[in-house]
């Protein structure tokens, strides 16, 4: 260059210190006859702002380049992933690509979205480990959460997720498009926060609640996407101090790389609410991204929120409370946030504004304090999973005290679960992904070691036991519940609703283990306790208990008591939910159907089960445990009623949904396999039947490894009938011996023993040993008579065999 940089620097600096209109003249004067210097300086001056912008932009482009996606694992239209065929490419994001796909096995039409993570997003090992977690995620069944159907790894090694297809708009666009007012926005927001609260009760955080992850369909139904995916992938490669999500809405702890918790989602909900109401995030305009990171103090990574002044003071306070810099300053859960939103809607004071309230408002708050606490409690209980609707129970003093007491218990339990949340975060586990089971184990140990109030400990253990049970780990569940029982027997413990619920868990465990007598007597105790604490009958907790007991009676073949209880349940539930559009009712209809089926009343059974199935699918969608149970039962009923085609159809659907929802090793999957096997056996497709029976057996062995394995009885009987039918004496002998041995257990039901003896009778008939056959049929008759009326077809069938044998003699 033909000029001195030093000179250029000086002139430029002086020039910039002058008022705008004097600058050009200054440069012309200062450069004298240095042509090139003047030209460069004038250009620089002209482009002062552009140059600043350009550098800022280049800086972001470079960083963006680092985070841009890699070449994708090519998924092309027509590719098959599991049961789904890729239809078209939709979009690519920072770390994944999204495709539309259709179900490819022709069983039913279903349009889904496949989200395929970019290759290299995870190491292969990780992605396989994560599949198990996806099964947990698949349990999230909520009208406002997009269902995850399936997950896997492409042949190229990229993890993918199959999700519900939602035809909708991002929530912010929806709000704009519909020009919603504040109350309408709050209604939408309630749906969102409710879904997040629901996920939290299943120990899953979202952590990336941006509008593009929240769609609203044409019916105004909110659907949250990508649940848990952010969490699932947060570990990244180094496993520490990295976070998934969108920086603009990230909570301070996310930016600091600290453990996240339910309060992190609360922060993001606050950001979202602000955006929905004002159209923008509560961030200062000039807090441009690169400035945000310029200070050395990590605190300054976090921008101070600036809540738009146009927003109503109560809502401002609520958003402000969500956006607390420290998690402790915020609402502890989305449920608590929801409560405050409802306070606002119902013109109650919001808790976010407690001290600035006028005295009268404060008094009002005090006057209605109990009610507020009750609402809190209901919300809190959503988190602990113990739904106790004391609010509905009225305001009698005893119950009020109980509510306060229970709230303490629940708060303790809740905090305890939140700790678990945090412990499960990869940043606390040195990069190892903790499975849900691992952190339940951790929680179990912590609960055991808990030295505080026995009531709280009881509730902790009950919660843990319940979670184990609902995740299908019966052995762990028993472990925990044994401790609960030992504690519950200690009479020094004060009587409370949580105590009653703990006892009930024990009954359910006994039921799951096939100890129906013991389960029934524990349930009787539960009802005595309900009346002792004055719990009302017209309440969903009470009806739930009735239902459990009805089902236990059914398992005991006590159909009369079962019918009476379930009819009473339905009557109460129809009072609680007059529109009858409730999932609890679906369950009751199902149970009634099962009882009908048990009594050979197939038409009534099919009617009730179909009714339940319809309700389930309407309310909860296809991928819901109740849907599977209904389909399985429906299939078995059709089969008994002599309609194998209908049976096969229901059964296939059940198997399919079940596998998606639970994976291989789950009771429901085993039941589906059994059903399919029985149908194939009826259709004389013995190879297929064998395949499914063995699969059922294997699942049961895995789930219940103990010696006196009652659950294996069903599979053993299935295989036995198969080998009798296909005339394979060696195999028959093997399974017959097995079935007779297990059949000695008092836990095995009469009808199962009857099936064994019936098969044995057929076997000896085949071998032309009538005496043995007669002996077996008589055994079968005795077992059948022990629980069935004389006119029942099963009793009559055995009698017919005995008669024909007699005639043959």
């Amino acid at each position: 260059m033909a000029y001195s940089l030093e000179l250029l620097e000086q002139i430029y600096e002086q020039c910039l210190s002058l008022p705008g209109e004097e600058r050009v003249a200054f440069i012309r004067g200062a450069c004298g006859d240095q042509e090139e210097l003047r030209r460069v300086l004038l250009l620089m001056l002209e482009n002062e702002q552009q140059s600043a912008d350009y550098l800022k932009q280049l800086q972001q482009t470079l960083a963006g380049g680092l985070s841009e996606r890699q070449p994708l694992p090519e998924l092309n239209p027509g590719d098959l992933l599991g049961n789904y065929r890729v239809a078209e490419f939709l979009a690519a994001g920072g770390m994944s690509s999204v495709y539309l796909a259709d179900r490819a096995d022709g069983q039913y039409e279903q349009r889904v979205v496949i989200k395929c993570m970019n290759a290299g997003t995870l190491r292969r090992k990780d992605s396989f480990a994560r599949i198990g977690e996806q099964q947990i995620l698949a349990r999230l069944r909520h009208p406002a959460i997009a269902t995850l159907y399936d997950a896997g790894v492409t042949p190229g090694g990229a993890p993918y997720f199959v999700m519900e297809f939602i035809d909708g708009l991002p929530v912010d666009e929806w709000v704009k498009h519909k020009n919603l007012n504040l109350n309408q926005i709050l209604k939408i927001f309630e749906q969102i926060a409710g879904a997040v609260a629901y996920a939290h009760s299943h120990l899953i955080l979202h952590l990336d609640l941006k509008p593009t992850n929240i769609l609203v369909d044409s019916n105004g139904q909110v659907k949250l996407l990508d649940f848990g995916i952010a969490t699932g992938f947060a570990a990244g490669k180094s496993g520490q101090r990295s976070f998934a999500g969108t920086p603009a809405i990230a909570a301070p702890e996310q930016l600091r790389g600290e453990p996240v918790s339910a309060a992190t989602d609360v922060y993001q909900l606050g950001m979202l609410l602000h955006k929905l109401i004002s159209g923008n995030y509560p961030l200062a305009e000039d807090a441009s991204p690169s400035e945000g990171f310029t200070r050395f103090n990590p605190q300054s990574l976090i921008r101070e929120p600036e809540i738009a002044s146009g927003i109503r003071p109560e809502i401002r306070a609520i958003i402000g409370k969500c956006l607390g810099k420290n998690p402790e300053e915020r609402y502890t859960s989305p449920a608590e946030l929801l409560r405050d939103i409802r306070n606002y809607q119902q013109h109650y004071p919001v808790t976010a504004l407690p001290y600035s309230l006028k005295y009268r408002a404060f008094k009002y708050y005090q006057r209605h304090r109990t009610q507020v606490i009750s609402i809190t409690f209901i919300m809190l209980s959503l988190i602990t999973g113990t739904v106790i609707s004391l609010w509905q129970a009225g305001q009698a003093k005893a119950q009020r005290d109980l509510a306060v007491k229970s709230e303490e218990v629940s708060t303790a339990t809740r905090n305890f679960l939140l700790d678990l949340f945090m412990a499960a975060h990869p940043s606390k586990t040195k990069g190892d992904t903790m499975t849900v089971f691992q952190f339940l184990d951790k929680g179990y140990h912590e609960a055991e070691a808990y030295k505080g109030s026995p009531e709280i400990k009881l509730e902790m253990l009950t919660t843990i036991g319940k979670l184990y049970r609902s995740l299908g780990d019966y052995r762990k569940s028993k472990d925990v519940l044994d401790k609960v029982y030992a504690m519950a027997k200690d009479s020094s413990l004060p009587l409370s609703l949580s105590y009653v619920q703990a006892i009930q868990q024990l009954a359910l465990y006994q039921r799951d283990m096939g100890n129906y007598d013991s389960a029934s007597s524990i349930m009787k105790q539960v009802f005595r306790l309900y009346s002792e604490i004055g719990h009302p009958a017209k309440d969903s907790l009470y009806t739930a208990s009735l239902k459990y007991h009805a089902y236990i009676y059914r398992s005991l073949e006590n159909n009369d008591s079962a019918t009476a209880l379930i009819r009473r349940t339905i009557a109460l539930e129809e009072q609680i939910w007059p529109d009858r559009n409730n999932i609890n009712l679906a369950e009751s209809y199902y149970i009634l159907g099962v009882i009908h089926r048990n009594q050979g009343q197939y038409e009534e059974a099919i009617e009730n089960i179909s009714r339940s199935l319809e309700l389930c699918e309407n309310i909860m969608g296809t991928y819901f445990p109740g849907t599977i149970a209904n389909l399985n039962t429906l299939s078995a009923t059709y089969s008994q009623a002599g309609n194998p085609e209908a049976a096969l159809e229901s059964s296939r659907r059940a198997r399919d949904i079940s596998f998606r929802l639970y994976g291989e090793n789950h009771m429901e999957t085993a039941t589906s396999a059994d059903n399919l096997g029985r149908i194939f056996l009826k259709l004389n497709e013995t190879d297929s039947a064998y395949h499914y029976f063995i699969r059922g057996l294997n699942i049961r062995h895995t789930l219940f490894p103990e010696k006196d394995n009652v659950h294996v009885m069903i599979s053993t009987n299935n295989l036995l009938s198969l080998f009798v039918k296909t005339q394979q004496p060696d195999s028959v002998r093997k399974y017959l011996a097995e079935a007779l041995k297990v059949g000695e257990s008092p836990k095995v039901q009469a009808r199962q023993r009857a099936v064994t003896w019936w098969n044995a009778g057929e076997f000896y008939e085949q071998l032309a040993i009538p005496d043995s056959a007669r002996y077996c049929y008589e055994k079968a008759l005795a077992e059948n008579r022990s629980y069935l009326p004389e006119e029942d077809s099963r009793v009559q069938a055995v009698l017919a065999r005995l008669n024909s044998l007699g005639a043959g003699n």
Partner: protein
Amino acid sequence: MAVTPDPIFQFIRPASQGDAGAMRKVFPLIYSELFAIARNIRFNFHGIDTLNTTAIIHEAYLKLSSNEGQWESKAHFYAVAAKAMRQVMLNAARNKQREKRGGGAVTSSLDEVENQLVLSPAASEKLIDFDALLKQLEEKDTLYGRIVECRFFSGLSIEETADVLQVSPATVKRKWQMARAWLYVHLPRYGVS
């Protein structure tokens, strides 16, 4: 001050002040760390709208410092890391260009890693032009390079840059303003020689 400084931080200050020996010791470490972080961040951010190199360097600092460190050591770290960041970016950009021309067999494992940074051809070109121009300024005065590294790659404020480079804030401001505008108008499209 009672804590023993991390080994790496013994070299950071001299490195940031131009000690070539110290620089050689810490550079590879920071360089590879920036890589790991850049890649990791790529995998972890969904929306990349606000990601910048400063964030990456900040991550690197959090990662490499086992104690909270002092303001000062952080500043020096940022200065050294900015140099490394410049190198990381430039190598990635050059790899991209080589790839575009269809040549350049990649041999070392580090190159392989660099290849995984996906800079767009346009961004690569911009960066290579930018760097070449910056080198012209550096030939006259190395301070330009160091100021641009601190301000541009590391996002340090004027005062922070001044502290790290031990010059007055006024000098930093003057040179930065000038360098920024000068570099911009010398980009190829303006045709200023």
